[in-house]
């Protein structure tokens, strides 16, 4: 288990957004979290990455509790995330966006920057190399000097993935990565998620609304509704689970119209 969630409970005042949810994510797997709108998926993600502080339960990342850690500490430990609504550094170039991911893997400070010491220069070179490699992997290297906000939507998504990869994570959390992508881009995303796992040995955990994508890519699926876990299992198990059909898949049909 790379990530182990135990009885996690998050309340906003009287509202329980996440209710005693427990599950574990296997190292080297691709797993998904699904559930109807407002089921508490993103809230759960925010707990895992330290943006929300859950009141009860525990989150173990590589056997270490990350419940009380700040988001940047969690990233340093090796858990990277993307956001549901794009959160790029809009006025910076693609290159700068992705270089930011290397911040937590480097250390030079004021003196190094002002003196441009050999150590600092070597570090800058390494930052650029890693960023370039990440852009190449995702396929946006040709856009590296463009300002992020001037990119088409699909490319902005790619920048976010590359930026998360630049933090050199062991576990990558993708919050609705397919939102707003067209069919071709979704197919590329499936391919990409697999490559991230196979070539970079990164465990991938995603929240997704697009059932086609989830069913294609996931090795295991967790389903939550009203903050409570209602099912987990392989694609087939989840698809045939009556509680899931009732809570989610049936409703999805209506949504589609």
């Amino acid at each position, binding site marked *: 288990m790379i990530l182990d969630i135990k009885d996690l409970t998050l309340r906003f005042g009287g509202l329980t957004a996440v209710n005693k949810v427990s599950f574990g994510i296997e190292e080297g797997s691709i797993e998904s979290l699904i559930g109807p709108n407002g089921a508490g998926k993103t809230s759960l993600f925010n707990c895992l990455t330290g943006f929300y502080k859950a009141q009860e339960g525990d989150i173990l990342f590589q056997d270490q509790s990350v419940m009380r850690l*700040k988001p940047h500490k969690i990233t340093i430990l090796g858990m990277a995330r993307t956001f549901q609504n794009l*959160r790029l550094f809009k006025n910076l170039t693609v290159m700068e966006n992705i270089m930011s991911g290397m911040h937590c893997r480097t250390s030079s400070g004021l003196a190094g920057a002002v003196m441009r010491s050999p150590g600092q220069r070597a570090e800058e070179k390494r930052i650029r190399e890693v960023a370039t490699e990440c852009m190449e992997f995702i396929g946006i290297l040709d856009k590296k000097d463009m300002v992020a906000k001037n990119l088409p939507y699909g490319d902005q998504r790619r920048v976010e993935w590359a930026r998360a990869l630049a933090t050199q994570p062991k576990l990558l959390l993708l919050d609705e990565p397919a939102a707003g992508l067209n069919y071709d881009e979704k197919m590329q995303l499936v391919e990409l998620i697999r490559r991230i796992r196979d070539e970079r040995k990164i465990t991938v955990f995603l929240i997704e609304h697009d059932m086609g994508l989830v069913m294609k890519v996931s090795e295991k699926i967790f389903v939550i509704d009203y903050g409570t876990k209602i099912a987990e299992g392989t694609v087939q198990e989840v698809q045939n689970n009556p509680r899931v059909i009732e809570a989610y898949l049936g409703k999805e049909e209506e949504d589609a119209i």
Partner: protein
Amino acid sequence: MKENQVDIQTAAAQTATKQKNPLVQLIDRLYELFDNKKIRFIVLAAAVAVLLYLPMRTSMYFMEVMTNVWFYVVMCLGLNIIVGFAGLLSLGYAAFFAVGAYTTGILILHYGVNFWLTLPVSVLMAVIAGLAIGTPTLKLRSDYLAIVTLGFGEMTRLAARNLEITGRATGLVGISRPSIFGMTLYKINHFYYAFLLLAILAIFVSYRLQDSRIGRAWKCIREDEDAAEAMGINVVAIRLFAFVIGSVFGALAGSFMAVKMTAISPDSFLFTQSVMILLAVVLGGMGKIPGVILGAFAMVIFPEIFRGIGQYRMLIFGLLLLVLMIYRPQGLWPERSGGYSAKGKI
């Protein structure tokens, strides 16, 4: 979703209009020229040579104005680190200037310390002041932060006005002149050179920081604090760092100002002073180093040129600012149309 679509549309519209404008093409061409290291070196060397030669040829009045320009360049670049790079709106920057000026003034006047030895103390006090304003405001964003920094600025001034050691309302009078290699600095030209060197140092440090890991982290928290935090950037530490570095710039300028004027009083650190510095930064273009320098120039030179029309000059200055902010909210300094160069500099 909707927001993003709008963004894409406006971006597309911007690129479309930019391609047709000959002025934009000219600016891009100049940027390209300046990317050439040799040309850049020649231009900068020529500029420095002219600035060094200036005191031999011009009047004392002009030197007084130019010294003031360099002083404001240092202050504005300091504030630019806080407001422009890190995106933390601060309305109390004069407090940092006061910290430096009073530290040097008190040490020289009351303890007879050599001016040059007061500088490290001034830096230390600036670090403390930066942490003092930075720490309680860590969780605050934009508008709230602006109000707290405004309060901090006024508190500093009122403390200086009421404390025995700062000379109450009279301030400190008769601060002795510094000397270097046995030569006492007292002429305006001496201080012109001192402030010019300080300004060059401030420009150099600003550029180096801008292109560094710390500088990029500042830009990231300016753009989006949550995303920066998610990228593993310690937002708290990086914010504090911006306050501290900005504060040191201001304090050093203050220390030199104390010995140039030989007298300082609480009235030198009014709220309007903080606002003027902020104004220069916004006028030139927040976060753009050449823009900020231009802003400092404009703010000092403009009222001097229009001295003839007396009190109306500030009215005209205000009107001009208003027009500028409506038509050019990003500041005077032009950007290249692609946004950034290959290295991400402006």
